[in-house]
């Protein structure tokens, strides 16, 4: 029982860390890494919950998250390359052409 609580707290801390670094970083690569951290925090929460109930679905969900994260990183990196080509910088605040 205790391990469940601790696991969830760890997942929460990881997620918050990812979120904060997402908010304070301006480098797009670091923002992508922060997204990965948050995804892993969510995955951890799934694993912990699965262990708590003794069910396999949580692990299945983690597989999905891994696959999705891999796809997301590949698309994200491609976009980042394009941004770098266009703007010669990785500062996300510079990529604000779609300002309303």
């Amino acid at each position, binding site marked *: 029982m205790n391990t469940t609580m601790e696991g969830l707290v760890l997942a929460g801390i990881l997620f918050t860390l990812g*979120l904060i670094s*997402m*908010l304070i970083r*301006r480098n797009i690569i670091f*923002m992508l890494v922060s997204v990965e951290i948050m995804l892993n925090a969510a995955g951890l929460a799934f694993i912990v919950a699965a262990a708590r109930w003794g069910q396999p679905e949580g692990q299945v969900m983690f597989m999905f998250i891994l696959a999705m994260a891999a796809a997301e990183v590949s698309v994200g990196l491609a976009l980042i390359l394009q941004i770098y080509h266009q703007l010669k910088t990785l500062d*996300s*605040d510079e*990529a*604000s*052409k*779609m*300002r*309303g």
Partner: protein
Amino acid sequence: MQWIYLIPALPFLGALLLVLASRRIGKKGVALIGCGSVGLAALVTIIAGLQFMQQGSPAFVQHLWDWVSIGTFRIGIDLRFDALSLVFTFVITFVGFLIHVYSTGYMADDPDFARFFACMNLFVGAMLMLVLADNLLLLYFGWEGVGLCSYLLIGFWYKDPANGAAARKAFIVTRVGDTAMAIALFLLVQHTGSLQLSTVLARAQELWSAGDPTVVLIAFLLLGGAVGKSAQLPLQTWLPDAMAGPTPVSALIHAATMVTAGVYLIARTNVLFTLSPSAQAAVAIVGAVTLLLAGCSAFVQTDIKRVLAYSTISQIGYMFLALGVGAWSAAIFHFMTHAFFKALLFLGAGAVIVALHHEQDMFRMGGLRRSLPGVFLVFLVGSASLAALPFVTSGFYSKDQIVWLAGASANGSAFYSLAAILGAFITAAYTARMIFLVFFGKEKTHVHHHPGPVMMAPLYILAVLSTLAGFIELPHTLGHVTLLSDFLSPVLPAVVTDHGGLALEWGMQGLTVALCALAIWLAWRLLAAPFPSGLKQFLKNGWGFDDAYQVLFVQPFVQLARLNRKDIVDKVYTGLAAVTRGFHRIMSATQSGILRWYVMGIVMGAVIILSVIIWREYAV
């Protein structure tokens, strides 16, 4: 009888051809199509009329096709051919044809020759639809059609803004009456479930007893429509201004046919008026008052066409008086003779106007009996008819019948008699004044153009008609011929007379004739006499109706329009648009393009949603 549909179809076809092909066929072709279509319609009318009289059935209805069909409510394009519509159709096509022929001479130099004939043909077609319609909706269609053509033709010389204003005035003033008539039709549909004439009239007799408020209301609304179209009090103001149109238009539309549509409507729906005595009395009172007021105005006009316009209003007042006292066929008789002699007078006036190079002021004419003897002759015949000179003119017989029945019929009264006799006196006076001013005295303007045979032939034919047409109906005292009222008897009930005898009728006729002679003598003596100028101006302006309407209706409306110039009503919608635009500005400011702000937005949203969920779970 099977081809009576050709009667309205031919003029419509003529109008269509003239609109489409006027450029290619030249002036001769235009004249040929314009006159030919109406002439053929007249021919068909005569043939169909002869067949109709032989057959002896009261009415012939031709169903062409369905127009409206909703459940049990059906409106067909149906033509009704009976005695009443035959008289009107004959006058419209025959007089219309003569006026068309005359117009080929009168309008010969006009650059818009084809447009003129297209409008005239369209008018004749619409007017024929009006009188041949078997249901009131089709009648209303013709009614609006003639209104449109009247507008188009009054404003025919549209380059002068005054003509456009006169056209608009005619259209708008008659529209007031038309609206009343439309409401009457709605009420008829609501109560009788039909607009077909025979059904409506039969159902009306079953549904309502005499004096029922509903039928009185309907009759008053119909009277409103008739008053607008026939230029009777209080909607008479448009007709004198309508003289801005070419003179043949005044002859055809504003004397012979369209303005008598109100008479036709009331005669057609005579059952409704018989059922509502107060509305019928209103018809008589409107007629009596109008004939006096318009007659007085005619006496002081200086423009020859305006004299004739006021005279038309006054003569239609006679017809309304006859309708109001229940002398239906007398009204139709006067309509017919009036169509002949008033068309003759207008066309004669047109010949004078052209001869004097578009001079319409009677005080600048004079002495024309020597320079225009032919016109003088026919004008004299027409004027004699209008003034009701005894025994040889049609106007005498038709007006005499009305004068007699105004007092002698069951609905008649001394007031109506007095109005009719006084009206006859005034009519003779202004007619004589017109003749003396135009054709006698010193020649003031030189004649520079003599009307050709194309213009004179219709005048001679009309002169013969305005003399002979009277002899189909003679009073008791003079032979007692009742051809027309017998012919109309299947459609129009006979007049009920309750008092008076032969002696009284002789007395009335003698009085009218004496007054007529007195009026002519007075007109001759007073031609140069001074007239109180204030009163003269008042009468000349038609008893100040125009000024009153200007103050009562036009100016408030213009003020309202000026107030509303900034689109006050639209403020709600422009306000709505402004609010939306404001929100849009706020929302678009949030789209800053800074990625981290978006993330922050998502986080704040998630925090708020989570807080709400947690608060709902634990706080309650």
